[in-house]
């Protein structure tokens, strides 16, 4: 992976995504051109069904585009095999979901260690990194709690710790505050902003919440599968 500043982190050209076939086909993305540089904090906004989550899933290699090109650090993602996309996620991407998606009955520490386990990191190093990640998201006392014992905000912070423990270049957050109250929403967004500023992680947040979007420095609005507007704001954060 090249760190050359001339290659953008993410580059989409005419990206489309169609669900179903024939008469039942539905085009969720109708040709997206988008470039995102390293260290950006981008909010992708739009109404329900606008295609913003589809875009996020394709960007995060959780879903495959129907047509068009997607380059991640210059790599043609649309040409990668299933396993290669897994490896890209393993080594470069982190995810935070609206529904947290932590393993049930599994402690915070084990949840956060999981991506390191797939990376083949030693037991001792896994533990150290997981403890550090959980501490950095403000949960040093919840290491041995299972998701059922945590509040929504705490679960989301465990999920963020899991996403950043591998030190990814990009963090994808799909409606990360959708299940949280306004106070916790502020905490989570501050955390993402801090990760972006202090660690230089590129953050992409999908949201329909204007308040959440104010944390981003750039807002891309999607409507009916197309980019409606793409605005950079000088000052991130509310």
């Amino acid at each position, binding site marked *: 992976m090249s760190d050359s500043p001339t290659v953008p982190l993410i580059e989409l050209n005419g990206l489309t995504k169609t669900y179903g076939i024939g008469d039942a086909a539905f085009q969720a993305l109708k040709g997206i051109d988008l470039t995102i540089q390293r260290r950006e904090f981008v909010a992708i906004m739009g109404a329900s069904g606008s295609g913003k989550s589809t875009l996020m*899933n394709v960007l*995060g290699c*959780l*879903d*495959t585009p129907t047509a068009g090109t997607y380059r991640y650090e210059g790599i043609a993602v649309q040409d990668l095999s*299933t*396993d290669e996309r*897994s*490896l890209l*996620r*393993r*080594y470069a*991407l982190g*995810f935070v*979901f609206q529904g947290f*998606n*932590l*393993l*049930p*009955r*599994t402690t915070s520490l*084990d949840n956060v260690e*999981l*991506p390191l*386990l*797939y*990376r*083949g990191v030693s037991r001792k190093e896994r533990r150290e990194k997981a403890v550090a990640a959980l501490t950095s998201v403000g949960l040093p006392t919840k290491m041995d709690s299972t998701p059922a014992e945590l509040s929504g905000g705490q679960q989301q912070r465990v999920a963020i710790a*899991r996403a950043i423990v*591998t030190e990814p270049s990009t963090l994808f957050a799909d409606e990360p505050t959708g299940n949280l109250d306004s106070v916790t929403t502020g905490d989570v967004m501050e955390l993402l902003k801090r990760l972006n500023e202090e660690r230089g992680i590129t953050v992409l947040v999908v949201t329909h919440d204007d308040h959440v979007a104010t944390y981003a420095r750039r807002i891309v609005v999607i409507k009916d599968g197309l980019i409606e507007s793409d605005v950079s704001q000088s000052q991130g954060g509310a």
Partner: protein
Amino acid sequence: MIWNAFVIALREISRNMTRAFLTVLGIFIGAAAIITMVTLGQGATLAVKAQISSLGNNLLTLRPGAGFGSRGASAGVPHFTEKDAVVIGEQIAGVAAVAPVRNASLSTIHLQNARVSVVTGTTPAYFEINKWKLAEGRLFTSADLRSGAAVCVIGNTVRKELFGSENPIGAKLRIGKASCEVIGLLVAKGQAGMGDQDDTIILPLSALQRRMVGKTSSHDISQISISAKDGVDSNALITEITAVMRQRRNLQRNEDNNFNIFDTRQIAETLGSTTQLMTLLLAAVAGVSLLVGGIGIMNIMLVSVTERTREIGIRLAIGATAREVLLQFLVEAVTLSCVGGVVGILLAFGLCAGLARLIQVPFNFNLQINVVAFVFAAAVGVLFGYAPARRAARLNPIDALRNE
């Protein structure tokens, strides 16, 4: 990668002990059922065969009456004479030994212990023909037979009932009206299905006739035991004996036989095939229970498939490859299935040992059925554990995650 899969799989099992337990339960019940039923079925077959062979392999028994077991037909039919036995022994080449037998139920008393025992008066050849072996003391001899000596040989049941822990050899036993010296104790044959063979007192025919029941007529022999020489066809022998006996009993051509010949080898074959059929039946029942166990496993797996599909989605999203996830699920399924199989084998071993004692059949560890049951139960577990995971791991991560 394999080691990783083990670590992850074992962690996942330990976090879901209920699910693991239910899976293992289904497998081990199925495996234990099939092993137990087949092992006990085979034990029963062996027990019947052993019982038959303890009667004597080449044993023919000549009895009065038209057919085996039909008591009505033997009423009024004359019994045999001692001479009949002698003639059979002398005239028929295929006969190895022959012994006349007179049975009587008599009260037997030793000190304060009393019971009614079946008393058999016969000749020394009887022991050889019926495969009786001596545990202690001696058998009676031809000299005892000629003199009508008041001596007897007892079976193990009679020893237990009348003598308890006392050494019976040399002790006096009152049989009917006469007193008799116990000179020998027989090795126990055991009992299963055919009644208690060890409940017997054997003494010289002459002693029974003179001292206990009196010689009521020359036709006082209730059966004649005959053993065939090795390699002699029992059907041919039966034909010869039948011819001799028809002549000796003055039967006309149009008259039916008023005696019958009971061939233990035929009975052994019939019973052997019957018990084999029973074993097959038991195996079929056990197969059904294994199937039910398999359906139980399938249910557990299907119930947890939604949760597990999400788990697969999460694992794929954080960078696991489909192959790694499948390996994990395979290790989980194999581990649980093997644990279930081993527990099943252990449980079956305990059950077989206990039940074999209870129903008095021999318990032989059957390696083959243990292996078959283990492999089959484990295969069911692996199949139902792995198949849903295979489907889920093929999905796009986002589709697996959306599975609610």
